Every structure is written in C-alpha cells, then in structure tokens.
C-alpha cells in the first residue's frame, strides 16, 4: 500500500461491487481522476465469489448494523456411502481440501446473450477481460419433473413432449411475439392493451403445456404481468437466442465475481487508482469548496464526488437496511434433473420455480465444473428469492422441498443468508451517492441502470462507457482521412504505392 497517493480526485468510490465498479470505470473512461477503495482484501463486496474456505469465513463473520450480508448459516451433511468402496466420495474434508477450486457467488446471475450487460461489455471492449460459458438448459417443473424448455427450432423439433401440431403452434406463437414490436398498431396490441399476458396466451390457440412453458420459462412472468411486459420479456428471450450455445443465456467463467473486476480493470487502464484493505475512517464536507474531505489511514484526500456502497461505514452511517433477497447456496455430488439435462457430466442450467399460486417465485442456477466454479464431480445450486423475513431458510423452504424432497441430489453443504437493501434514503452526508445493493433479477439490468443514473447525476454531459473505436477507423488530427496508411497495406500494395509515389516524384522533377 503506497502512500504516494495523490491527494485530489474527481471521484472517490467506496466499495468494489458491481455497480460501484461500473461507475468507477465510466468516470475514468471519460478522463476523470478516480480513486477506488475497498476495506475488504478482495474485490466485489457482496457481488464477489469466494473459495470454499473464504465463503465459510465470510458467512462466519458477525454482521454489523450496516452489513448487507446477514442471517448467514451453513451446515455440512454426510452423504450416502458409495456401494462399492463403502465410503462417501465427498466429505467435508475432501471438499475443503479443494477449496481453491471453488468460486462461490453470493449474488449470482445469468446474462442474456443480447442483453444490456453483454452489449455493454462488447461495446466498451471490456469483454476482452472476461470469459463466458453458455447455459445448457432452461428448465421448468412439469408434473413434478424438471424438464428442459425448448430454446431453439432444433429443440422444438427434437422434443418428445409436444405433438407435431403443438410444435407448430408454439413456433407460430413465438414468431408472432417476435414480430410484435414491429407494428404496434396491430390488432393484438389494441385488443390486449391493459390486460394481462396470461389472458393473451389463453386467447391464442395454444395448449396448456405450451402456455405454461411460455409463462414459466420464456416470458418468466406471473398471472398479473401485463400483456406489454410479457411480450417484451418474450422478445428479450427470443432476441438472445442463437448467439452463443443453445439457450439465450451465458454465465461468467469462474463466477460472477469476475464481472466487477473487469470494470475495475478498465478503470485502471484509464488511470483509476486502486486500494484494497483500505477503509475510509471519516468523511466531511468542505463548505467553502464543496469538496469532500476523506481521511483514510492517516491521510486526507479531497474529492469532488463520492459514491459508496451502502455497507461501508462511516460513510453509510445512518443507513437502515432490511432483508431484500433470501439466498440458498448448496453443494451436491449429483446434479438435479435427468441424464438429458446433464449430458457429459453436468449441465449449467437455469430453473425458475413457482409456488402453487404463482404468487412467489425463485430462480435456481445449477453450475458444474464446466464453469470453473467448482471441481469436477460436484455441483453448485444457487437459489434466490425475494426475502419475506429475516429467516432465509424459511423463505426458501417451499422451493427447497420442491427441489430436494424427491430428487437424487446428494447435498454435502447447505448455506443460507440474506442480502439486505436500504429501507430509506437517509444520507450519512449530503451529496454522497449510494449504490443499490443487488436486487432480485436475472441479469444486471437494474444494476446497470443504477450505475447510469448515478453517473448521469455526477457527470451530466459525459458518455457512459462509449464504444471503443477500431484502430483502423482512427484518424489522427492533421492526417488526410481518405489517404491510405502505408503500414496497414499488404506487401504488394505497399510496393505499388511506393512505385506510384516514385513515379509522381519523378514527374515533378521533370516538370
């Protein structure tokens, strides 16, 4: 930790979670001086991923009033013994022995292949820093079984669970949804304005099986979701198909904790400065300059703007938090679902769960070693639902019983925790912007929207992570934009160019 730190910054960001890192990167990109701090010795805060040891340690930590992670507990289970060897393949010790092969997310999501985050990563070239794995199956529960939802023409063609007429109707329906946006004045949009998506589905000639498939797994909506919203979500799903792999979804290799780090990397490339294990001890406002004065490890720093994640005192003093997400994290030695869902030793699958009235939902992400998040032979189940209480296990009970009661899952480790969010907007100090903690969503849209919003408040005229130009398109001031760049020409053309220039010179001389 060098104390050659400059003393003046345009922006100080406290906490290296996803949203904060986006903002830091965006600010640095447009030329602002940025200092990015985190009192933890790792990046990502509650958006981070952990090795097995580190997760247990983190869950063991006593939460404080301002902690976004709370109500944490975990249990090791003994599993059945292998019939041949008489010993269980996996025990607590053998799992811990491979601690470093785990990348366990506190707040995992999956990404739509054509969604906001992916587009942002590509546009700003941050994708250079990240690797992804296509999600293998999108699933739903049907008659007590976990089944794969057809995600492509090929899936629809091959599935044995629909009759050919049903296949046709499904395709027709999805095509209609896909074309919907192009003609807002069409009959359907007029007829169903203000009504629910479920009503629209019922009015289409689709069977019950197809309707539940669309509601549950494609549009992922409930009985009260509006027609427009349902169409939009369906289009979002369809629009991400066919880009990478067989489903519309991607998962970051080595866990979602990689993503905040990517933004941090970009921030650093453009000049941002990083300090981990560095807390801010105090913060005050200088009334004459309107700068913030932060004291940290004995040094005083000045910043025009401050952005902070809510879990960092003293900056977040006075912020009240309440339960927002209930999380379950399980490690199993066998996957959920049948062989077809887990070809080749482990599917990376997404499953959306509902309660009987479809009033409550949860999503399950199953990860296998293919994502680099766990060793081969083990599976991670991430379960997430909006919190109802301070008891995450109770909140998730109805979903865990759906999943585990009649399955072959061999749970070795189970843990529960709560992610909390602000209940009011009291500011510890004026003009500090607090990012929202992770919210219940499948992708990062809300987080990015939050980052854009705060960025917009800070730097109203600047571009949020503009596109990086291709080297070829760049014209340096003073150069003729329609001239050829000798160095980017292949050998034979360069030779011709030189010949031509020579000939012109000789002509000039002759003149």
């Amino acid at each position, binding site marked *: 930790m060098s104390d050659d730190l400059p003393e003046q910054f345009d922006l100080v960001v406290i906490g290296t979670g996803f949203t904060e890192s986006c903002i830091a990167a965006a600010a640095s990109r447009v030329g602002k001086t940025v200092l990015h701090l985190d009192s933890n010795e790792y990046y990502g805060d509650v958006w981070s991923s952990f090795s097995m040891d580190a997760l247990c340690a983190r869950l063991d930590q006593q939460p404080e009033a301002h902690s976004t992670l709370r109500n944490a507990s975990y249990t090791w289970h003994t599993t059945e013994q292998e019939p041949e060897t008489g010993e269980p393949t996996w025990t607590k010790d053998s799992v811990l022995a491979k601690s470093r092969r785990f990348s366990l997310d506190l707040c995992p999501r999956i990404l739509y292949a054509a969604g906001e985050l992916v587009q942002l990563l590509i546009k700003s070239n941050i994708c250079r820093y990240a690797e992804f794995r296509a999600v293998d199956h999108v699933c739903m529960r049907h008659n007590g079984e976990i089944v794969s939802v057809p995600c492509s*023409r090929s899936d629809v063609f091959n599935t044995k669970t629909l009759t050919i007429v049903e296949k046709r109707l499904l395709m027709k329906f999805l095509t209609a949804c896909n074309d919907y946006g192009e003609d807002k004045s069409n009959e359907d949009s007029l007829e169903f304005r203000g009504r629910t998506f479920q009503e629209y589905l019922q009015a289409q000639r689709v069977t019950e099986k197809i309707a539940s498939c669309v509601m549950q797994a494609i549009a992922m909506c409930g009985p009260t979701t509006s027609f427009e919203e349902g169409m939009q979500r369906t289009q979002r799903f369809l629009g991400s198909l066919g880009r990478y792999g067989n489903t519309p979804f991607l998962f970051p290799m080595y866990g979602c904790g990689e993503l905040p780090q990517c933004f941090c990397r970009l921030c650093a490339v453009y000049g941002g400065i990083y300090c981990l294990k560095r807390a801010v001890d105090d913060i005050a406002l200088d009334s004459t300059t309107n700068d913030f004065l932060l004291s940290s490890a004995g040094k005083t720093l000045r910043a025009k703007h401050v952005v902070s994640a809510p879990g960092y005192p003293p900056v977040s003093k006075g912020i009240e938090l309440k339960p927002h997400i209930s999380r379950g994290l399980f490690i199993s030695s066998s996957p959920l679902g049948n062989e077809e869902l887990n070809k080749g030793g482990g599917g990376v699958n997404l499953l959306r769960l509902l309660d009987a009235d479809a009033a409550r939902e949860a999503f399950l992400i199953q990860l296998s070693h293919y994502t680099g998040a766990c060793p081969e032979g083990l599976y991670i189940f991430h379960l997430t639902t909006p919190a109802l209480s301070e008891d995450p296990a109770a909140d998730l009970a109805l979903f865990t019983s759906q999943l585990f009661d009649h399955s072959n899952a061999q749970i070795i480790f189970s843990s529960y925790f709560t992610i909390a969010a602000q209940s009011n907007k009291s500011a510890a100090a004026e003009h500090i912007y607090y990012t929202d903690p992770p919210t219940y969503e499948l992708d990062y849209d809300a987080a990015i929207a939050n980052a854009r919003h705060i960025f917009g408040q800070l730097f109203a005229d600047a571009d949020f992570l503009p596109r990086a130009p291709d080297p070829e398109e*760049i014209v340096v001031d003073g150069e003729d934009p329609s001239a050829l760049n000798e160095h980017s020409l292949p050998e034979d053309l360069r030779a011709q160019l030189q010949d031509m220039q020579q000939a012109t010179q000789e002509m000039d001389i002759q003149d």
Partner: protein
Amino acid sequence: MHGRVKVRTTEEERERKKKEQALKVRAYRAAMGRIQKKREAGELDSEMLTLTVQILQRNPDVSTLWNIRRECVLEKLSKLKEEVEDEEEKPAQEEPVGDKPPVKEDKAHSIFTCELDLTEQCLMVNPKSYSAWHHRCWTLEQDPRADWQRELQLCNKYLKYDERNFHTWDYRRYVTAKAAVPAAQELDFCTEKIKVNFSNYSSWHHRSLLLPELYPNEQRDRPMSEEKLQQELEMVLTAAFTDPNDSSAWFYQRWLLGSGAQLDRAPRVAAFRLESQGAVLALDRPYPDLKQLKTELTGGEQKVELQSWLPVDSSGTSWKCQQSLDYQRNTIYSLKLCDQEVNLSPLPGPEDGAFYFAPPHAAASCSKELLAELQTQLQSCLDLLEFEPDSKWTLLTSALLMRAIEVSANHEKSLAHLAKLEKVDALREGYYKDLAARWTLEYELAKWPQAAGFPRNFTLAEDVLLASLPYGQYFVIADELNLSIKLREQLGDSVPITFADLKVKGDF
C-alpha cells in the same frame, strides 16, 4: 494524446477504398505481366508460385493461375523424381539409410501441403470458388499420402459455416468415397445435421442418396423399403410442422410419398389396340422413335414383330402401325414391349380385334403400418388446417396424402384442396390447374374400364372442368370421345386422336 481521434465518414471511406482499388489494379497488372513473361520463358519456379499467390488470395477464380501452379507442381515433382533416379544410379556407398525414400516423399508432400494450404486460404475468402475446390481435388489426386480423414474434418468445418454450400457437399461425397466411409455412417452424420438444423435442403438431399441404397424397396414402386419410409415420414413431417415456412421438409415429403420412378426406365404399354388392318400403341411416357424398341405380338403359334411404327402426333406417346395382321378370333394374344409382356383382351362388339389398357398411376403397395402412418399424418395436417386454413404446404401435402391413402374416396376432396391452392398460392395457379386436370383424368381413366362403352367410347361429364386434357395417348384405342363443347373449343387442335379418326383418315 496529440491529434484528435476521429472516425472516418462514409465518403472518406469510399475515397480511401477507391485509392486502394487503384493500387490493386496496378498490382494485378504488374503481377500478371511478370507471370506471363515467366511462363513464356518456361520458368515454372518458386517465384512463379509466389506471384500467383498474391492474385489468387484476392481472386481465387482466375483459373489460369491455378493451371500455372499445377504446371509448377508437376515440374517440381518431375525434378524430384530425376534427383531420386540420379541418386539410385550411384553405387551404394554405405548401408542404405532407412529414411532415404521418405526424404523425397517429404519433399513431395510439402509441395502438396503448400497447395492445400493455399486452397484453404482461398476458400476462406470465397468458399464457392469452383477453381479453388478443383485445385484441392487435383492436389489430393496427385498425393499418395492424401489424408482423407483430415479432408472429412475440413468438410465438417465448412459445413458449419454454410450448410447449403453445394461445393462443400459435393466435396464431401468425393472424400467419403475416397475414404470408403460406409453409407450407414454417412446417414448418421446426416441425421445429426438434421437434428441440429432440419431446414436444410442439402442435408435432406444427401440423405435421399443414401437411403435407397441402404434400404432398397423390392417392388421398386417406392423410393425405399416401407419400414424405413415410415420412419422418414414421421421425421420429415415433424420438421415440416415445426417450421412450415421452410419448404425443404415439404419437398422431401413429397418425394417420400411418390413412386420413386427412375428417369431412364423404359416406357411401358399404356394402351394397345389391334385389328386386322393395323394396331395402335400408347406409351406411358414419350419415346422418340418406337422403331428402336422391340415390340412383339404373340398369338397361338404366331410370333410377329411389329415394325413400321409411325407417330400419331408430336407427343411421342402415340404410335400407329400399318402392318397387316392375321387376327384370329378365340386366340389369346399377348404383346411384348422390351421386357414388359401384357395379355390382350378381345375387343367387345362385332369387329375382330384385341386390346390392352392400364390406367395411369396405379397405386403402389401399402403395408398396414405404412397406411396407419399416412393416416396419422393426414389427420395432423387436417388438424393444422383448422388453425391455418391457408397454409399452402399443408393443403398440398394433405391432398397428396389423401391420394396416397385412397384415391377414389378422396378424389373430390383432393381436388377441392387444389382449387383452394389456386387462390392461396396464386403464383402457381397454372400448375395447380394442370395438376387438377391430371388427377381428374387419372380418376376418370381408372373408372373407364367399368363404363358401358369401354373401350370404344369415353365420356367425360359436362361438369368436369379441365384446364387441359393430359394422358391424351390413352384415348388412341377408343373410337369416340364425348367431351363437352367448351372443352373441345378449348383444346382446339390438340383434341386427342382416336382409332376411329385414324381409320377415317385412311391410315388403316
């Protein structure tokens, strides 16, 4: 950073491109000039190869340059051969080192590798270049160490980029033949390809080559064995329903429902009539000159070869023979045309004569299981029509299915589908009208033997509307055609000629 970063406008980009193109023209002219000079001087060397590469990489269709490369390759190979022969003539100084021959082969192999690499580069630029593909084939033909498995992998790779590239498929067929890949394995490959993307006419086509070979049909009246046909029908209809906008599956289905007829099979006897003055013969398909085929009439002890056939009209399907034939009552006659032999029936009525008639398009054999499959399919199609009454392919295919299951019961309905298709698929109105005419005539001709005046009279009811009158040759054995006035007017000169007409004209 000094200098503002700016991105080119389209106008500036266009300007830049033009300048680049001017350079390319110069480079091309310079290189071609040099190449032609060297060729005249017989310099088929490495410099030549380098010069051709520059042009071919940008434009792989300049086939002359590939020719020159081949000349260079052959030149190099023959030089290598000379070297080896020279070496072999020298007395052996030491123990022959084990790897002497391979050194020459290595050199040759690297020559071939160079060609293969270049074609691969060129194919990345233009995967549809006839010249590049041909050069690859040529190179592999020259190379005794050609790695056909690798070529198969190359095909797989290219097919991933573009499943419809027929060059790649042709190349695949070439390679699998060389590598002696069993047809069953290729069929599996095809099946996998279809599972991933069933709307691929090229995959279905490839499949259609393998199936008749692997599962031949004994009666030769269907494209493959009935059992396999049933499986294929199921698969193809699923494809057709899953994406009815893609026509590949529907085309394939129509083939499956057809008779699998071969293009060059000999024509068969459609109708024949014999009286003492002469005979007429109608063929089921046209033939330019019947005299070239052997026709033989057998009756009792006699065997007469029928010659002096003349065409009745320009269609090539109707023929008349003016040989005097000694027709005996109470004798059973048979007619042989090439390999087909048919028994004649005596002509009803006072005049002496015999005839034969086989209505067109006889139904193929159909096992119980196949019939059940066809009926299931028809039901699915009809179900779908309730949701999509204007679906052209469903309308057409269900009509074909109806006729494959049972023509007479379904005749009216199938025509109704065609009438609907004339509206729903109006571009092809002419086709549907002609198809309706064919189906109607097939139906009428199938009924004809039960009619009172058969075979002397043929009557077509007034209300039968036809755009044309196909199968005209079948009427050459009749005396009288009762057609509506409207139809006669429409047909004008192309009203079919009857036996009676020929008698009147004095042909007999």
